[in-house]
């Protein structure tokens, strides 16, 4: 990767979100929902890189999220680290972990990757409960508010800007990753592993790297979630969460950053509607995964893109010629 790109979309989104927020969303509840959208958006972008670009379906995002959340919380509580240091350290730590466990699975068929991440997602809550001395078991931990130059960021509103800044930075990084060397290697490795290898791409390594990147994003989201809620318990990171995350990416569109963000926003907004009916939520999430995979494999974002293209062609009077 020689030069960094500055995608217009990211800049526009950042400006809109930064200005629109204090104007419109007065109530604390909708502010909290907006915070969650940014956090899950971050996670979904990372997962999109693993699923869409590397073709590796990770069921372990809940675990990486939990890993990041707990690492940062423990570092700030026990070792009195600043939030601003704990966040990158926890995210990079989880990213490295994802990379290391991704290596052996990436050499094999995609099945292994999914099985491995399912195992991780099942193991983490259990391990957290067992390590009571550090994690406080079922009771969980309560991280303190992050401070910004000595000012504690106490409100959902101030937290919004923290999450927004981190999301924008990491969106920009993601854009550069997927349009640069990493992204092209991943697509090559996904489309034709043999050809990719012949071109000197280490297929296993780039696939493991994709899991590392997705773990990094999930962990960063986990840190933000922990500090937003002021509370982490092993229950927050169960396997069911991973299903929701997958559904976000699949519904939004697993080949684009914007699709992942749309999916995350959609699920975060709709989730409270079925909050009391967990079983119904499970049915909806599963059904949506099946239906989208069957009938709209590239997700809602592709629908938007297709419509835009058709409208343009229609406007130019070329729709018939195109068909």
């Amino acid at each position, binding site marked *: 990767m020689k030069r960094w790109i500055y995608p217009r979309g990211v800049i526009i989104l950042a400006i809109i979100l930064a200005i629109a927020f204090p104007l419109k969303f007065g109530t604390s509840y909708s502010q909290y929902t907006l915070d969650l959208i940014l956090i899950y958006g971050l996670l979904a972008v990372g997962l999109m890189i693993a*699923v869409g670009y590397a*073709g590796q*379906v990770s*069921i372990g995002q809940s675990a990486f999220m939990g890993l990041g959340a707990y690492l940062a919380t423990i570092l700030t509580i026990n070792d009195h680290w600043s939030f601003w240091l704990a966040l990158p350290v926890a995210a990079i730590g989880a990213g490295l972990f994802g990379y290391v*466990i991704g290596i*052996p*699975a990436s*050499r*094999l*068929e*995609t*099945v*292994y990757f*999914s*099985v*491995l991440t*399912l*195992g*991780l997602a*099942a*193991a983490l809550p*259990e*391990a957290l*409960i*067992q390590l009571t001395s550090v994690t406080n078991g079922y009771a969980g931990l309560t991280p303190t508010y992050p401070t910004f130059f000595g000012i504690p960021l106490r409100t959902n509103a101030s937290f919004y800007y923290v999450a927004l800044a981190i999301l924008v930075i990491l969106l920009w990084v993601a854009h550069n990753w997927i349009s640069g060397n990493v992204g092209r290697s991943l697509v090559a490795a996904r489309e034709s*592993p*043999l050809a990719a*290898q012949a071109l000197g791409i280490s*297929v296993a390594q780039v696939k493991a790297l994709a899991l590392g990147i997705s773990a990094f994003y999930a962990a960063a989201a986990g840190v933000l979630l922990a500090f937003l809620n002021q509370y982490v318990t092993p229950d927050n990171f169960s*396997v*069911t969460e991973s*299903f929701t995350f*997958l*559904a976000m990416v*699949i519904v939004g569109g697993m080949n684009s950053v914007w699709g992942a963000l749309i999916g995350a926003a959609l699920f975060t907004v709709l989730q409270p509607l079925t909050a009391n009916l*967990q*079983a*119904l*939520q*499970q*049915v*909806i*999430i*599963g*059904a*949506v*995964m*099946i239906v989208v*995979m*069957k009938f709209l*494999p590239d997700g809602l974002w592709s629908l938007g893109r297709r419509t835009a293209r058709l409208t343009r062609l229609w406007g130019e009077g070329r729709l018939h010629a195109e068909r």
Partner: protein
Amino acid sequence: MGQVLETGIAMGSLYSLMALGMVLIFRTTNVVNFAQGAMAMMSTYIAFAFLTSLHWPVWAALIAAMASSLALGALVERVFIDHSSRPSAPIASLIITLGLYSVLEGVATIIWGANPTAFPWTLNGIFWHRGHLVVSTNDAATFAVTLILVVGLFALLRWTRIGLAMRAMAQDASTAQLMGISLAKISSSTWALGSALGAVSALFLLPITYLQPTMMDTALLLAFSAAVLGGFSNLPGTLLGGLIVGVLESLVGVYVSNQLQNTVVFALIIVVLYLRPQGLLGRHDIKKV
């Protein structure tokens, strides 16, 4: 110690059965069935419904459950997978089975509730004991049924036309089709068979897990690790893998903690993937990419 091993082997046989079903489906149709556990759970609830709502005798309810699991397997393959109609995209079908897993668990919770219920009929009593070693009737039946099914499965694959067709499809689907094998038929039969193996496993796990929508979650993971130990292809290796996983689970449960099973299984998967990615009995012809 002997008792721990006995329990482990009994549990392990059940994980083996489930894993054999998954590996069979994976080898033949190239789909990993993440809904294997949820489908098996559904079959046990169907047996439960026949027993309690319709007051069928036990044998009839069990037969109905097995029949429904065969039908469910074939139905899932027809509706969601349909291997024959177009080349399968591994990710798409993987995600579909994940979705199915979520749907089935949710549906079971809505119909029957999330609370664990005791199955109205169990194999009680002790089959055989000597000193401290006790073999319960349920365990003895588990051993017998596993033995019959495993021998039957191997015989089916080795000596019958349909078994030959399954092996042919596993090796090279398009050539198999050219040889006059109906991929659609074989694919559905494989799914039916795999689903039924899972249902048997679930019925024998009932005394331990009780009847609940999440009853097969742990078993699914353990069966997956058995499949990993078998290299996701080798059937004897998968059988052995299931037994190893069962014994390991039992040992960890007794000597370490019964709350760390998933963690140990995860560690096992990682170690196997690093040291023997082709599985315990696998040869080196794994697909590397």
